[in-house]
């Protein structure tokens, strides 16, 4: 047995959170389990920052685990690790609350899965990681055990399991087509002419669910707000990216573009607009996430350079969305006007970045992806910024409406989204050249600036209108509300096929009849005749 080949760090980055997760189950550590969480993403973060070359293989694990890090993976890995780290720090106030040991354990499991998705080079590791993310995150959603959370959990688990199945089947089709377990080969095989479209469709289904692809997104606005704030942050910031990355990894170039692009756009606009009907700021953010993911899915569908730069876009969105969710938590812990204003200001800044206000990280991300887009889709992207601006302004308004009460260590709490926000706004600058192929000067060109600015500007009047005349406020769940009747209907199956019969009655009848026949046979005058008859019969039969 060879434990592993190649660099150990990628493997450690996955095993370490699992170990910590196992530790949280130890009775002495249970009360303080949350304290361990910030340690979990550290190796992964180190790996992302330090980079690493070469493939790590652990041939005995699963069906042979192989891990590798390329640029895109590294970017997402870093973002994810950072977000998880910050979220873990933000989760510290949960220490001592009920169920935190379970929460912590699954936190680690989801984290490991989330990292594994970005590291996996073979389909089985990928699938295992994805399943860990997908299913274990259920525990993050239902953690509060409120009626709402449990409902969200139910919806989530049903859809997630369906997604798992679709994924499993799709991956199996892919692996068979490729005659290989390697991710790259599977994508190539699926893209080869004549290969089964069913496989791709199933993969899109599986990943789309996680990535919030309309109309598979219905769980998301329920689940993300239901989780505790740190949970929401990772769900919306990092976990959805697993689905997105799956699409990037497995869906062949150009395949299903005509499907993915419109669906992405529908998500991008529809979700943003529907978000305006939400009162809960977390729900608003969730719709914003759907909207942003819609954009990214459109980019994947568009293919080419746009698709290549999706990780860059995702990086920004992950960090920013994480910051925004955390800010909701911070706002809940603030009652003083100063603190509330500070929160609002930070939220506004991050929101502006997400909306793509010039020179923010968001603007950079959008600029980077726009290069690879056709004109109409670039326009759509710009227009989506209008919707984004609209919903985020609405978010800020809803955020301001929140009433919290002061809690200890507010400064430290505030520092966390602040750090994320700073990273979101500035991080793209550091990577700009590598991902866009342009120098920083491109960003300061008038075209670029105007391109980024006008959608935000357009959004302001309708935003004011929305703030003034509210849209009807609806519970989250859009399509689910429409399909409400669907819930809870049980499957009826006909009664079992069984060999049951009226045994007693049959026995009685048989007893009666057999006694009758035996009663006839026992009469010698009758049976006796059979003797000579039988002799004669046999005589006739013999020669």
């Amino acid at each position: 047995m060879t434990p592993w080949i190649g660099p150990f760090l990628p493997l450690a980055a996955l095993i370490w959170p699992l170990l910590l997760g196992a530790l949280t189950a130890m009775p002495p550590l249970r009360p303080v389990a949350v304290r361990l969480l910030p340690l979990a993403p550290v190796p992964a973060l180190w790996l992302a920052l330090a980079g690493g070359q070469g493939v790590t293989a652990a041939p005995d694990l699963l069906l042979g685990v192989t891990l590798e890090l390329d640029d895109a993976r590294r970017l997402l890995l870093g973002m994810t690790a950072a977000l998880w780290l910050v979220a873990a720090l933000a989760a510290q106030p949960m220490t001592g609350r009920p169920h935190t040991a379970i929460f912590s354990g699954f936190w680690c499991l989801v984290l490991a899965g989330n990292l594994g998705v970005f590291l996996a080079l073979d389909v089985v590791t990928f699938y295992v990681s994805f399943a860990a993310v997908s299913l274990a995150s259920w525990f993050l959603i239902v953690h509060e055990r409120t009626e709402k959370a449990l409902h969200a959990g139910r919806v989530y688990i049903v859809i997630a399991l369906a997604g798992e199945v679709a994924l499993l089947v799709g991956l199996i089709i892919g692996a068979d087509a490729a005659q290989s377990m390697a991710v790259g080969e599977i994508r190539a095989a699926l893209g080869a002419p004549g290969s089964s479209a069913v496989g791709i469709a199933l993969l899109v289904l599986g990943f789309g669910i996680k990535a919030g692809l309309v109309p598979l997104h219905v769980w998301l606005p329920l689940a993300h707000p239901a989780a505790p704030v740190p949970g929401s942050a990772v769900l919306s910031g990092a976990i959805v990216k697993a689905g997105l990355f799956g699409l990037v990894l497995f869906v062949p170039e150009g395949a299903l573009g005509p499907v993915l692009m419109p669906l992405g756009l529908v998500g991008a606009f529809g979700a943003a607009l529907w978000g305006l009907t939400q009162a809960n700021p977390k729900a608003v953010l969730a719709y914003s996430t759907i909207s942003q993911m819609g954009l990214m899915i459109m980019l994947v569908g568009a293919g080419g350079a746009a698709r290549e730069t999706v990780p860059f876009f995702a990086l920004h969105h992950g960090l920013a969305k994480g910051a925004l969710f955390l800010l909701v938590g911070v706002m809940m812990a603030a009652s003083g006007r100063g603190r509330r204003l500070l929160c609002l200001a930070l939220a506004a800044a991050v929101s502006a970045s997400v909306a793509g206000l010039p020179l923010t990280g968001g603007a950079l991300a959008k600029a980077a992806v726009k290069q690879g887009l056709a004109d109409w889709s670039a326009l759509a992207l710009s227009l989506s910024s209008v919707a984004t601006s609209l919903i985020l302004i609405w978010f800020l308004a809803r955020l301001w409406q929140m009433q919290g009460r002061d809690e200890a260590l507010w400064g430290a709490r505030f520092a966390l989204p602040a750090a994320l926000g700073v990273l979101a706004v500035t991080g793209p600058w550091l990577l700009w050249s590598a991902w866009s192929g342009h120098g920083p000067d491109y960003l300061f060109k008038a075209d670029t600036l105007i391109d980024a600015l006008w959608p935000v500007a357009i959004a302001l009047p309708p935003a004011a209108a929305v703030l003034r005349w509210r849209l009807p406020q609806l519970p989250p769940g859009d399509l689910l509300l429409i399909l409400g009747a669907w819930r809870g209907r049980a499957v009826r199956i006909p009664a079992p096929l069984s060999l049951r019969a009226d045994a007693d009655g049959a026995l009685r009848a048989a007893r009666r009849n057999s006694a009758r026949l035996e009663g006839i046979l026992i009469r010698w005058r009758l049976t006796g005749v059979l003797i000579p008859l039988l002799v004669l019969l046999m005589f006739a039969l013999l020669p």
Partner: protein
Amino acid sequence: MTGLLPIFILLTSLVPAAITFFLRQESYRLRNALNLGGAVVKGALIVAMLVAVAGGASFETAIPLAPGLVLLLRIDALALLFVSLSATLWLLTTIYAISYLGEKPEQSRFFGFFSLCVFATTGIALSGSLISFFIFFELLTLSTWPLVAHKQDAASLRAARGYLLYALPCSTILLVAIVWLESATGPILFTDPPDLSGVDPASLRVIFALFIVGVGMKAAIIPLHGWLPAAMVAPAPVSALLHAVAVVKAGAFGVIRVIYDVFGIERVAELGVGTPLAALASFTIIWGSLRALQQTEIKKRLAYSTVSQVSYIILGVALASPFAVIGGLAHLVHQGLMKITLFFCAGIYDERAGVRSIEGLDGLGRRMPWTSTCFSIGALGMIGLPPIAGFVSKIYLGIGGLQAEAPWVLAVLGASTLLNAAYFVPLLYRLWFREIAPDAEADERAPALVGPAVAAALAAVLAGMLAASDISPLGWATLISERDYLE
């Protein structure tokens, strides 16, 4: 010495059985020592055999009964796989059963038949000829009956009667099949496939069907499955035995033997009987799951789950493509590990919390965390959640289905996974997220009950985690299929 190794392995179960029958109820210590000792010695012998087989040794022992009737014991990789599984699970189940039965009555009878059951299972595994297989197969039927009826109440007796009602006609059919085939070919040994060219294909198809009915009943292929859910009235160790260690496994093992060592894959393909069998298995998978959904008793739900899961094995071997075979063989072990975990836990719930119905599970997760964790692992594994063993089987079966140009298998697998989730997730939900009833009495202060469950759960996880290693069930299955069936 080495020639006698198979016999010694059989004796490790038979001797304790024979002695146990004559022990008094009060001889707890002696009985436990005998049974545990037998299980441990058997494990050691199997390890010895593994080492020897790895070193190229082969074991074959023939005991002539009558001309044409030879009891042939032989060890090949498939036999080793099955015998290792049953031996391991036997040890766990014995530990569990000793604690489970505590000071309940009729223990000598119980453990006697229990060991006899394992003896029969081992015999099935080691059988090198069709007739030896049948002899042990029937012995299994018979030694299981007293176990199902163990509680001796009306329900148990009804279940036991139901069991025989299925088992005996099917074994008769099996005998007819064997005799029919052997009358044309002479005694059939698993070492060299019989020459079937003298039999016309129509007859062969009928014989094949008879074989499948004969062994498929134990594997609970629908519509021959009715006995299995009914038999869940038996004590938990018996359920473990039925569902994981011996009975359904013997059935599935029988299907494998029939397809690969009696008919041979080529012949099966020629006759065109593989696909109908796979379709039947698929139907069983789905139908079993649907029925499981309707059950409100934990063990019944688990029982229908077994109906469904065991057909994975049959599906795999019926498809007969390389990956499918490997998946099917591996699932033989995987299902055993996961299902025994579940039944152990169900037994603990019953024993320590008095819970039999699904409603009763509410909130037990906190009171009985170890048990509930194991239960969850088993359940999730059944659903196919990685990295627990079940998903490996599913992947292989899926790929195998495509290799066999039967893409509908994927639909079956998908539907089955969803259904598995549908009937297991609510249980987990209740365990972990409902509040426990205020007056509930539940604890898990019974290490000998919980220990085996933990061990089995751990094994299920490891089987999935380390699937690619040579010594994993999957590795073994690969070896078997490469060495014996798919040159």
